[in-house]
């Protein structure tokens, strides 16, 4: 297994390199620059600024400098927030997104798993239709409809929560519910599919024939195999959920990193764009690796190659 993980980590290096390189040149070819503002700065100041950040040097030199600095773990200074480095911005905002992400993930699992199992066990009954329809609601009502609707009803009409803000524990409820419902829906659908597949296997029939109770058949015999699709989904999902959601963080005014993914591109904050892209890529790749390891552990038929 150590060999497997080591090989995979080695394969990651060229992938990360390509991502950094592609993003680096892609953002540079976008018209406009970090200092293009409504109030244009005088050419002299602009020249000074560009010299300060090394933007006046040839692109390939800047690229090499950047590569060198990220190898030292330094993501560079932000252009939009002049006194801050990208490392500082990530260190400040990522924890908020991770916190929201983990709560949402908890919500998603607590709602999604039981619904999916229930739908599979009661296949083609009204219970199944109810669970499956609920799952589709989560998939089909986008967060930018669900979020405002929850605010409209629970915060404005009933006054149970603040409409936006990120201070006390109560402020976590609506955002994590909005975000969690989407993932709950996917998890419920995948669980149902996986469980249906497993429940039709011979070894389940054997277990039943041996007189195992229905609860035991589901919990002990089916769940492990039935959750395989959910586990593969959770890899990319966790990477996405903990790096923040632009929509949720905008609607609920949360100071997370998700907003920077989009805003940095709008601001042409080159280093911050690269920093967030790199952050996401690293999360995604490690989560996928973790998923592959967990899957071998869950499914004895698989082997590390």
């Amino acid at each position, binding site marked *: 297994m150590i060999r497997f993980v080591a090989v995979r980590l080695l394969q990651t290096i060229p*992938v990360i390199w*390509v*991502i950094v390189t*592609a*993003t680096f040149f*892609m*953002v540079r*070819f*976008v*018209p*406009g620059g970090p200092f293009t503002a409504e109030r244009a700065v005088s050419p002299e100041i602009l020249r000074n600024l560009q010299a300060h950040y090394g933007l006046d040097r040839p692109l390939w030199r800047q690229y090499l400098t950047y590569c060198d600095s990220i190898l030292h773990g330094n993501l560079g200074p932000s252009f939009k927030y002049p006194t801050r480095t990208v490392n500082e911005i990530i260190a400040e905002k990522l924890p908020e997104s991770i916190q929201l992400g983990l709560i949402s993930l908890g919500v998603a699992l607590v709602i999604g798993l039981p619904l999916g199992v229930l739908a599979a066990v009661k296949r083609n009954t009204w219970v199944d*239709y109810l669970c499956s329809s609920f799952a*589709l*609601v989560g*998939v*089909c*009502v*986008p967060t*930018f*409809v669900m*979020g*405002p*609707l929850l*605010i*409209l009803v629970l915060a*404005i009409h009933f006054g149970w929560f603040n409409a936006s803000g990120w201070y006390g524990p109560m402020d976590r409820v609506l955002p994590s519910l909005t975000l969690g419902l989407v993932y709950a829906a996917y998890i419920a659908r995948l669980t149902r599919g996986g469980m249906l597949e497993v429940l039709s296997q011979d070894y389940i029939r054997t277990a039943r024939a041996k007189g195992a109770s229905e609860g035991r058949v589901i919990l002990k015999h089916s769940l492990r195999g039935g959750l395989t699709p959910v586990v593969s989904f959770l890899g990319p999902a966790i990477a996405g959920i903990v*790096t923040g959601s*632009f*929509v949720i963080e905008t*609607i609920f005014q949360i100071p997370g990193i998700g907003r920077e*993914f*989009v805003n940095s*591109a*709008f601001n042409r904050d080159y280093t911050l*764009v690269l920093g*967030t*892209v790199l952050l*996401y*890529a690293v999360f*995604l*790749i490690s989560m996928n690796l973790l998923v592959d390891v967990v899957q071998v552990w869950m499914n004895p038929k698989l082997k590390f190659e």
Partner: protein
Amino acid sequence: MDEPEAKIRVTTPDTEQGHSLWSDAWHRLRRNHLALGGGILILLLSLLCAFGPIFSQSYEEQNLDLGAVPPSLQHWMGTDVLGRDLFARTLYGGRISIMVGLVATFVALTIGVTYGAIAGFIGGKTDAAMMRLVDILYALPFAIFVILLMVFFGQNIFLLFFAIGAVEWLTMARIVRGQVMAIKKMEFVEAARALGLGRRRIIFRHLIPNVLGPVIVYTTLTIPAVMLLEAFLSFLGLGVQAPMSSWGVLIKDGSEKMEEFWWLLVFPGALFSLTLFSLNFLGDGLRDALDVRASKD
């Protein structure tokens, strides 16, 4: 072009013979009321959006004296702050949203199927290199990719089609590659090769028609994904520009003003979700219907 060839008939299921994959699938789909209902609803909604604006009130005519009024007999969904009829705007927005969904999916379909089929058919190092590229593209946060494309090319609706399509083809490529690899060793491909057909002809005339099942299923599920992406871009202000409108734009405007004018959010949001609902039901139904492993229960 008139040489004889073993063309596989996919578009006209032969009901007299009965038991082709396609006629079986059609029978199964017809029994799935949810999927069928979804299909019919989609058809109705598309027709309504396509032809409704001809008969309804103008979507851009402003009536500032009127302002935003709640739903009434005259304005079924109320009006927005500029006094424009929301029903007309929702239909018109649906037109754009559905069109983006269809065209962008077509772009994604074309790229994904071609790419996947070529990678799967050629195999070896070419395949490995092509699929690594897909892996890398998967690891980019796609919102950024689309934003860069949009910012780069300016806000042109045709570029929106292209940008979204260029993003959504990856999964399609993977699916098609897997399928092609599974069937390329079969006798009919051997036969085609023995007849002296070129690679291109084998890929496009023989392999691709035989992987259409999964492709159709995934296409029905791509359309809602694409429409969501369009709405997300509109939410960022990068999508369709005024005075044109899409469901995404309407939802964005509505969510900004919902505290006073709830109908601005609720109606476009409901119609949008209803469309996604129907497409998903149809897609799920098609998947069950075309899944050859499914037993006939």
